[in-house]
């Protein structure tokens, strides 16, 4: 199957943007990454097995492109994350603190945490998307949770 890019933009635009922002920590870079990802899909010649396959592919490409963006030497003159956070409207102080705590996690924990808590992927699925072992994903998830707990105290519950 190969749904139209227009349909996928409508469906995944925001989630892919949030994923890209999670990695880039920069709004303009995240928009570039999402745009490049859809262009990649658009020019991709192969068929996909399912909707889940497409979603996982898009997320994997977004993460790879966002990491590449971070590794390029030239980056946009960007708004510092702290200043960017000030431009966001959070529903509560707790949400703002959680967002900041997540964004201050090391990248490898941040990505796994985001895939689990925002995209609702299982450990197995995360391992498949990131091409990591399941135990590696579990370790990153556990360490990320611990860091969040240490920062947010009672604002972050213990998970299994």
């Amino acid at each position, binding site marked *: 199957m190969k749904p139209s*890019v*227009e349909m996928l*933009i409508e469906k995944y*635009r*925001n989630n892919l*943007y*949030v994923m890209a*922002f999670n990695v880039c920590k920069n*709004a303009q870079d*995240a*928009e*570039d990454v*999402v*745009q*490049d990802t*859809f*262009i*990649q899909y*658009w*020019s991709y010649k192969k068929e996909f097995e399912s909707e889940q396959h497409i979603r996982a592919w898009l997320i*994997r*490409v977004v993460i*790879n*492109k966002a990491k*590449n963006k971070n*590794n*390029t*030497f*030239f*980056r*946009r*003159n960007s708004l510092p994350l702290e200043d960017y956070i000030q431009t*966001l*409207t*959070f*529903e*509560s102080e*707790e*949400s*703002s603190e*959680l*967002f900041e705590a*997540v964004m201050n996690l090391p990248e*490898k924990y941040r990505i796994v*945490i*985001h895939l689990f*808590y*925002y995209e*609702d992927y299982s450990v197995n699925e995360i391992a498949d998307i990131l*091409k990591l072992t399941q135990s590696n994903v579990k370790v990153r998830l556990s360490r990320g949770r611990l860091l969040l707990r240490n920062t947010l105290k009672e*604002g*972050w*519950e213990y*998970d299994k």
Partner: protein
Amino acid sequence: MTNKEKYKKAFSAVRPSDEFTLEVEKMKKIKKQHFFKTMVASIAVCVLFMASATVAYAMDVGGIQRTIQLWIHGDCTNVTIQFDGDGTYNMEYTDADGNEQFTGGGGVEIAPDGRTIPLSEEELMEHLMMPDVTYEDDGSVWVYWFDQKVDITDKFVDGVCYVKLVKDEETMYVTVKYKGGYAAGPHKFTDPDSWGCE
């Protein structure tokens, strides 16, 4: 409220800007606007050779698409690379672990009058032949060049590492600033103070 609910609530504040457009027709026309400086271009791969390169004009996306063989992290790899004609390239390949990888880059020359001139395809290929520096998740740092792989993790002094690579008659002097870019050239080490992050 569960952690998932808290997390989603927190990240619901993040949305692309109103100006962000993803209309397909516009996407086709959009030119990438940011480049990284030529001298310190961070390139993901090293080219070993272009073996019977296939040239095809990808009319649907513009630019020239080629299939070439590259050394990527010590593995000889078939890569589909597309030069977009604006100083940038995108490429895709399957890595040694069987994973599809997508990467890209680009560069400009800074003219004396300050103008930026997109690199040509030939110039980009020259940069693709330069060494690559990789930071692994385990904290190790590696320099790759052709089939050479050098662990420089413990070689940094004051955040800078100098690596001399020799292959047949060719020598490459690589200056690496820890997570701050690198420069390579055939004659001498580049002064690490001669470049810096913006």
